[in-house]
């Protein structure tokens, strides 16, 4: 069996496992997995830029929020139905990421982190400033009756789960394919040594801009999907905290691995969920576990697996 076949087997296996989980797991965990898959889309988007291109953004909440508000506001203010609103959400994230990418890629390294952080903060304050439309920090509910697409009620547990699985699978497989394409290989080359890639004749700025746009649009899809599937859009999702989350998920799961984002989200979700039922100081537990993982598994869970056991892992 070739490495490519193994990779494909792994990806399809993960999707099959998630589909089977719906029938096997108790209701509570099924609900959690719906949410985890949507957040994993966000982490996949982040991983594309950070794990494969080597650009550490601290402003991805802006792209997540662009998708969320693109969808939410078009439904709230213009009465669009779910399908066109989802397209508006995606388009919003695409435009915002293109503009931010164009401006922020004039910097690199720490400056890139700071510039993306500042843009995201500006985005958050913009949402508050236009509170008459966005309802600011309070946010707004997307009515249950409007959350339907192609005849499916997306507020129903079953359809929500499979809608999340469908979106997750598309992003998961597409990114897995993309990072193994010549374009993806070039991004990895840029991550490893940008000067060398440029010397070899690649337009690294153009590649990085495309990476920001793809990453931002996938993140925006996650934001739009969250609003659509869970019925709420709010400025909290544009705060810096929601820019840090995908970084943590990807670092824990394994940056530059295809299954790392999903593993990272599952790990963090249940770390918080389980430790919060033990103590109110659960963030302390989470912090200690994160420090330990960083010390003893610096490449993240999937990264360590790839390093020690499955060297073929994509």
């Amino acid at each position, binding site marked *: 069996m070739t490495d490519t076949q193994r990779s494909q087997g792994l990806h399809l296996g993960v999707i099959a496992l998630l589909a089977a989980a719906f029938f096997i797991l*108790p209701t509570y965990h*099924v609900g959690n997995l719906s949410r985890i898959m949507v957040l994993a889309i966000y982490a996949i988007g982040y991983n594309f830029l950070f794990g494969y291109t080597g650009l550490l953004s601290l402003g991805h909440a802006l792209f997540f929020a662009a998708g969320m508000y693109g969808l939410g506001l078009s439904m709230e203010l213009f009465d669009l139905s779910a399908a066109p609103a989802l397209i508006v959400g995606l388009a919003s994230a695409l435009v915002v990421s293109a503009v931010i990418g164009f401006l922020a890629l004039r910097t690199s390294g720490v400056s890139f982190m700071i510039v993306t952080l500042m843009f995201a903060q500006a985005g958050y304050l913009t949402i508050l*400033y236009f509170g008459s439309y966005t309802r600011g920090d309070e946010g707004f509910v997307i009515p249950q009756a409007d959350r339907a697409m192609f005849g499916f009620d997306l507020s129903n547990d079953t359809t929500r789960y499979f809608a999340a699985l469908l979106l997750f699978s598309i992003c998961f497989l597409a990114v897995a394919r993309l990072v193994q394409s010549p374009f993806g290989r070039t991004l990895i080359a840029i991550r490893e040594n940008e000067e060398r890639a440029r010397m070899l004749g690649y337009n690294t700025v153009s590649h990085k801009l495309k990476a920001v746009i793809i990453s931002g649009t996938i993140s925006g899809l996650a934001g739009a999907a969250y609003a659509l599937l869970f019925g*709420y859009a709010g400025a909290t999702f544009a705060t810096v905290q929601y820019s840090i989350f995908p970084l943590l998920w990807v670092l824990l799961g394994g940056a530059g691995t295809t299954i790392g984002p999903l593993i990272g989200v599952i790990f963090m979700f249940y770390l918080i969920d389980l430790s919060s039922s033990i103590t109110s100081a659960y963030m302390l537990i989470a912090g200690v576990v994160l420090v330990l993982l960083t010390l003893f598994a610096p490449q993240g869970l999937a990264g360590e697996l790839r390093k020690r056991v499955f060297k073929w892992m994509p």
Partner: protein
Amino acid sequence: MVTKPETKFTRRGVLKTLAAGTGAIVATSALPGLSGFAQAQSSAPIKIGFQVHRTGIGAAYGRWYNRTTVAAVKRINDMGGINGRPVELVAEDDGTDPKRGAEVIEKFATQHNCDIAFGTLFSHVVYGSAPRAGELKLPYFVVSEGHHVASGKLNRYTLQPGITDVKSQVQAMAPFISNNLGKKVTMIFPDFAFGHDHRDFFTAAIEAQGGQVVESIAIPPTETSFSKYFPRIPRETEVIYHVMVGPAVLTFVKELGEFFGPNSPEIFGFIDSLEAVDLNSPGLEFLDGTYFWEGNPRHAQADQSSHDAAYRAAVGVDDSGASLEDAQDVSTYSHMFGCWETLNVIKRGMETANYQGPADRQKLIEAVEAMSDMPLSDDHPQGAKRFNGKTHQTFGHQYISKVSDGKLVVEHTTSIEDGLYPDEVDYTTQSF
């Protein structure tokens, strides 16, 4: 009304088919999430999922909401529980975060098998959680004071029977301000939804009283210094209305005092700014002689009711509104009574509906919707209430207090009628 599309393919349906076909019913029913509430015994506790701000920006409120809730549940259990069954609290931290809030609601419904969900103050957590409560058909009793419930933005499963909403509170203040403090008002408020609610509702209310807002000063939420905003206060201002919240409020008051010195206009604020803050803190001297809205008077008044005294003792609050164990630990007295009163409404609703288990959730909601007047009593120590079953919102008395030597002394109590406004929704027309 939009009809919700039916989904024929349900998880439970699939499970049933599989189980019947293969004889796997034994295996599937052993799974904890699938067993439902079928094994519930009539003597089993009524489980109330308590969504609490243990961490995040609402933690100070959460601490006192928790104490009040624990005290109220103890009292209910001491009186024999609900329908002869003890009440069990299942508390989960929502992190004052809407995403976590929704997850907690889901946990109450599908893991803890709670009968209802209850609690939480911050509006964005309510907004984030209410859709899930509606989808899970879990009655969700909030103690938030937001206008979200009565505005019609939520759903039939979300109710606010224990605390008046901000629109009503603000509206009830306008006559007192207009008649006693002045008609030309400058508003200073945080530039987010809570502040915007005050701006919009008060502007309309004071105009109805023949007054006007001469300037609205929105302060960005990230601001830490306020002096630069004060020159925008017009000279004609007779009253300053402030609703600043968050850790910067001490700086705000100090800088306002330095700006005006001894010759300030009348000053009226919402105590939300200073909940859990000792009025004798350094820098707050300037507040002496100013007025505050209070949801429930923090300091025991000369005419304190026996109901307030009993409530204070049960929760563990002294006459100055601080913890009996630590005088520095000041309560959120203007809001936390809502937990006490809401739990008593839940008790009454469950008793009226003869609530036995989750199958009776709709009957519980209908029983609460049928409620109206709630007299001042040990169940309602803050004051009488009038619940509007159509809007799922209660209305009550509000208190206007003057700071005098570091103590809040009630100057005026509004009537329930002062805070009434036309219905914006009729939830009873929505199907379950």
